[in-house]
């Protein structure tokens, strides 16, 4: 199954050609890779040390030395954005992993079993949908106090029904196909069919949804750390940087502008990537064009 037949290779080539022509996909991919690279590089190099607090240098506007200026402790904002990217990416990534890890099996199970399992799952989804990440985070924080883990759990929980729905809808459209019937006739059980036939067929829509949820996760994390429910100081996070900028807007607007732009560019990149992937992988939109 893992060997590439000439036919498959041709498909991949066709896809690659299409990918190179898809502007949305390319731009999104470039932005996403740049942000990821920035986060990676920050582990061993940043223009300035973010743990160093040269207070005499505080709230400097952007200069050749400090591209994005410095904050109220004199820290280099560009360096802080680099380090903050780690936090945003990590939170959004784990939240997507939680959503997929729980949601996809649930959705596939509902599609395979139908009946009351399906109904129960949909009702369960309704309940979770009523708890936006912020409300879950409020409850978790009220009990356990603030922390980065809260943001991950709150966003992750909200992702579960999203992936369950997408996986269920995808799986439901695959089940009536003839090759599934053939697989059943050859004696495979529902689990085998799901793993061997359903999952590979819904992988692309899950990937697209994963990209979108990743973008939403970054936005949600920024919101949570802005109100103090996310990463705690001294760990830099984009949302916190905006919170700290708020009371200093009049003297140092650059403190608010650059971290905000970092969020916008990252989310935009991921959304473009998601749109591009959908165009490339989803046969329905392909036909529409």
């Amino acid at each position: 199954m893992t060997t590439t037949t000439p036919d498959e290779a041709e498909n991949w080539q066709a896809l690659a050609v299409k990918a190179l022509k898809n502007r949305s996909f390319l731009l999104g991919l470039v932005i996403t890779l740049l942000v990821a690279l920035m986060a990676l590089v920050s582990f061993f190099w940043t223009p300035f040390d973010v743990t160093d607090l040269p207070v005499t240098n505080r709230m400097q506007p952007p200069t050749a030395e400090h591209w994005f200026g410095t904050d109220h402790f004199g820290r280099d904002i560009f360096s802080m954005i680099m380090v903050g990217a780690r936090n945003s990416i990590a939170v959004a990534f784990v939240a997507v992993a939680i959503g997929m890890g729980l949601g996809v099996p649930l959705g596939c199970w509902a599609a395979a079993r139908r009946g009351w399992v399906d109904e129960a799952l949909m009702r369960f989804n309704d309940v979770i949908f009523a708890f936006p990440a912020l409300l879950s985070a409020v409850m978790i924080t009220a009990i356990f106090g603030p922390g980065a883990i809260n943001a991950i759990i709150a966003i992750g929980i909200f992702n579960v029904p999203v992936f369950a729905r997408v996986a269920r809808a995808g799986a439901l459209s695959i089940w009536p196909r003839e090759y599934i019937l053939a697989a059943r006739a050859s004696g495979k059980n529902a689990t085998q069919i799901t793993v061997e036939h359903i999952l590979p067929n819904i992988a692309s829509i899950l990937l697209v949804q994963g990209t979108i949820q990743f973008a939403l996760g970054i936005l949600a994390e920024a919101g949570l750390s802005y109100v103090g429910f996310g990463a705690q100081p001294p760990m830099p996070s984009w949302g916190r940087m905006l919170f700290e900028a708020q009371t200093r807007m009049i003297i140092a607007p650059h403190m608010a502008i650059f971290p905000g732009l970092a969020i916008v560019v990252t989310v935009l990149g991921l959304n473009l990537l998601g749109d591009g992937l959908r165009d490339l992988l989803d046969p329905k939109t392909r036909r529409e064009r």
Partner: protein
Amino acid sequence: MTAYLLKRLAIGILTLLFASVVVFAVLEVVPGDPARLMLGMNATEDAVQALREQMGLNLPLVTRYVTWLAAFATGDFGRSLTYSVPVIDLVAERLVVSLPLALLALALSTVIAIPAGLFAAARRGRFADTATMGLAQVGVAIPNFWLALLLVYVFAVWLRLVPAGGFPGWGNGFWAGIKALLMPAVALALPQAAILARVTRSALIEVLGEDYIRTARAKGLPRRRVLWRHALRNALIPVLTIMGLQFAFLLAGTIIIENVFYLPGLGRLLFQAITQRDLIVVESVIMLLVAAVIVVNVLVDLSYAAVDPRLRTRR
């Protein structure tokens, strides 16, 4: 039709019940001893015991849940630990800020998004479409609280057109109140409008491909009329669905935005309650917001029947 309405209603009530179990479980069962958590480690055993009595913590779990739910349903949210007043009074006082803010934002985003979606769909594939959707793509990526900060900087600090924050209260006149809510509402509305405009456009494009649209055009109806009367009406179901789902984010956004503008709404109440570990207030406000989300989504489902005659005739 009746069967459809009743089923939606039943599902709504069931969801509400489950959600209440979740809220109760997280805020009253998980902490083990909520009274101790609320008063802190330094409180005397007598004080903790008194609060346990007041909150009914000595009763069996199921009794506590049923009593809490029954009281909540009748508007008795308990007494706030920090303010020593009934929570319902606190909530009512804050709701007159949060509710108008949410409604204003919802109205603004609808007024912006639907014409924008129509505009783009009518010019599909042309420059105007690409430009509008490009703008929407950026709008979706903007965090509302950041937009709020920028708006404060431009309109309050720089141009001095509107107050940077705070709320004068409705007692000082209707317009003074609206003026204080306008900027927060715009900050909330724009990113939401971006999402809604995209949904409106794609729903319209789908509808515009239908046969009855071609028929309407063929019988000589003007383009504009076909677009507004026939296409928009049919595209409204996905648009309404997204509006319903967005409502949850709108409420969450309201809570965050209130902190940017120092508005004395439910969001401020919630955050103060967390800092003061006033679980009674937290529990009531969360339950109220969750209930609002569920009720709005049931209403959206019910409104399908009003929008789509096909649903009305189907049983």
